[in-house]
């Protein structure tokens, strides 16, 4: 079965400093991986996706993630945090075992706080 583990439930950074949100995955084959963001009282929004093309994936709002098969990791980074980045971030793997279902398996989330 596929799964993702988000290593930090809370991360706090100062505005203008780098962001690192860690995610490790477990998969028996080449996975599709995603990062979603959830702002308070708003719906989930796709930040970026990895689907076996380039291992360094660039997303919206200056975020990027690197797929590292040797480390089974897909960490999310941003060079400089902005106050508006404060939200909950979910690392997600697509379950393709069920054939066409393509259901998403979510991590437990990392709450990012950005201090002024």
């Amino acid at each position: 079965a596929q799964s993702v583990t988000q290593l930090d439930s809370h991360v706090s950074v100062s505005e203008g400093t780098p962001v690192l949100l860690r995610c490790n995955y477990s998969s028996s084959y080449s996975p599709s991986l995603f990062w979603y963001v959830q702002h308070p009282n708003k719906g989930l929004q796709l930040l970026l996706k990895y689907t076996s093309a380039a291992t360094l994936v660039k997303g919206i709002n200056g975020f990027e993630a690197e797929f590292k098969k040797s480390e089974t990791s897909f960490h999310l980074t941003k060079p400089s945090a902005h106050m508006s980045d404060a939200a909950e971030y979910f690392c997600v793997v697509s379950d393709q075992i069920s054939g066409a279902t393509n259901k998403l398996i979510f991590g437990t989330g990392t709450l990012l706080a950005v201090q002024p």
Partner: protein
Amino acid sequence: GAGVSQSPSNKVTEKGKDVELRCDPISGHTALYWYRQRLGQGLEFLIYFQGNSAPDKSGLPSDRFSAERTGESVSTLTIQRTQQEDSAVYLCASSLNYEQYFGPGTRLTVT
């Protein structure tokens, strides 16, 4: 264009009552998913519809949960005889290919 919409946005119900949650997907999206998000946790997959194929119900937690979808349009998730552990945000997503677009969710509180 319009995104995925869900209604109601909030629902408070008494234990033992039935509730019905509605999802309007993005027009033209053939796939529709229901997920549940308990407080402080990630999303749990509940059920998946794709066109006229039989739905994937593998995530439904008990036989009190059921869902229907009419063609490629509206879907309803029904929870019968609600229990306090059913309290959660229920999210719907629709998809045309691999990217899923999520609605704002229905917050269900069972008292």
